[in-house]
């Protein structure tokens, strides 16, 4: 409800410079559609030679839908939202509306809409080119502030991503099984060598694992790997180390272990348990494991390369002897071939 009654007012008459201040992007047409006045900011966008006295259809074109700017077209859209292209810079589409004047002509007032950034840059516009009430400068401020914030967020994201990659590289855990990974294994071996402490090492390779992956899918394969990890954790002490070092390859380290018989006992228990069928979604998954073993005490110094090679050779012997068994390395084992 309005308190004040609307009193009939005489028409507002503004001198052109005053209108220019209110609407610096307007132009006025006479009854025939000839341009009779161009406000100063709009003049900066139009051909330098000037457009006064030219028909508006040579200067502007309607867009969305595209149409010529004949007076009939403009009058048909009085008061509607117009999309107007400048023919001398047609990729700049301005927004506006056309309203009739008492002399039978039209006033077309324009605004940059979403193109404001580009227009301000392209034509070197300043604050003085906009009406005091215009929010353009605030919008430019916001665009700039948001861009600065986005740039900071982007670099934060990059840094966090870098930190994540670095953390993954430094991680000691195999994410699938929760066992230790190759990096953790290497650190532990280096630690044992530093302490001069003897240890036993087992290299375990799963048998028939590839078939599980191929026939039942990777989800089944992953399930089997987690079951194996469970078995290895249960069959080793907290001070031992069980690491997954490849797809279906594991290395176990037993600090302080110098007895071949002890190691063979543990290996036999692990192999027995690996042979028990594992269930995945009502499907029985059958695998087995082959193991090669070495004792560090058999070496004169900490020679990991030789130990790994010998453990591999013993593992190969287990495979050759029919899988599902463990072999302690000894000189004279047949060499690994392919």
């Amino acid at each position, binding site marked *: 409800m309005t308190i004040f009654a609307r009193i009939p007012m005489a028409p507002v008459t503004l001198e052109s410079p005053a209108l220019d201040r209110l609407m610096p992007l307007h132009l006025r047409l006479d009854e025939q559609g000839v341009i009779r006045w161009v406000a100063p900011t709009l003049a900066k966008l139009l051909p330098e030679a000037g457009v006064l006295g030219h028909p508006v259809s040579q200067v502007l074109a309607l867009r969305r839908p595209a149409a010529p700017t004949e007076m009939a077209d403009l009058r048909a859209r009085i008061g509607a939202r117009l999309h107007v292209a400048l023919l001398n810079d047609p990729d700049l589409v301005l927004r506006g509306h056309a309203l009739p004047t008492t002399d039978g002509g039209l006033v077309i007032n324009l605004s940059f809409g979403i193109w404001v*950034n*580009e227009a*301000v*840059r*392209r034509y*070197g*516009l*300043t*604050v*003085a080119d906009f009406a005091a009430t215009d929010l353009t*400068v605030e919008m*430019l*401020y*916001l*665009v*700039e*502030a*948001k*861009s*600065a*914030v986005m740039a*900071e*967020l982007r670099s*934060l994201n990059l*840094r966090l991503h870098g930190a994540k990659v670095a953390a993954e590289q430094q991680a000691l855990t195999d994410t699938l099984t929760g066992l230790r990974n190759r990096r953790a294994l290497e650190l532990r071996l280096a630690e044992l060598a530093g302490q001069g402490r003897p240890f036993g090492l087992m290299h375990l390779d799963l048998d028939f694992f590839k078939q599980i992956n191929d026939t039942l899918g990777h989800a089944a394969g992953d399930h089997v790997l987690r079951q194996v990890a469970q078995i290895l954790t249960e069959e080793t002490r907290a001070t031992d180390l069980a690491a997954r070092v490849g797809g279906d390859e594991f290395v176990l380290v037993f600090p302080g272990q110098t007895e071949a018989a002890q190691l063979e006992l543990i290996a036999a228990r692990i192999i027995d348990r690996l042979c028990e069928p594992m269930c995945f979604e009502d499907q029985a998954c059958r695998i087995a494991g082959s193991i090669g073993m070495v004792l560090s005490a058999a070496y004169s110094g900490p020679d990991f390369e030789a130990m790994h090679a010998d453990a591999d050779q013993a593992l190969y012997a287990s495979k050759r002897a029919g899988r599902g068994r463990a072999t302690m390395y000894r000189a004279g084992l047949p060499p690994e071939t392919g």
Partner: protein
Amino acid sequence: MHGLINRSIQGFLRDTYGPATWGLVAHEARLGFDSFEPMLSYAPELTHAVIAAAAKVLNRPKDGLLEDLGTYLVSHPNTEAVRRLLRFGGVTFVDFLHSLEDLPERARLALPDLDLPGLQLAGLGDGEYRLMVSAPFPGMGAVMVGLLRAMADDYGALVLLDRSGDAAGADLVLIQLLDHRHSSGRHFDLVGQGLA
């Protein structure tokens, strides 16, 4: 405290005194890390600790350091964004002074969690203004003095600045505008590089 503020202090110390000095300050302040993240928030104590540590490491009074920080924010190429956002405040230095009251609100448009000090400008006539700085912690007045001095240069205005505290704990900055067209100042385009 918003990480952007901490990061600005870090940038100021690093760009002005070198990475080694920043390293010493970070250690002296017991940050436990070597770089603030501008888009995260930190406990206000960390900001105080860094400023106190910088004053100790550089053997300079806090106020002098904070004034230099304000100048750095406007005049260093690495913080060009700050200068540009401040220049949006107005066409002349006087326009800019009057726009300061909107500054916290303007900042919140871009970063809703950024709390800038409250700023209130009073015109005393004859080219004199008084800016009241109500900051969540002391020292913001000194930053404003450095910032205003650099912004006056940017607009090409000649000003005298004087700072005093008031009873309520707010900082008062007295601004005497001697010549608003002392020099041509620095150019300002409404649309910056790389934003078109």
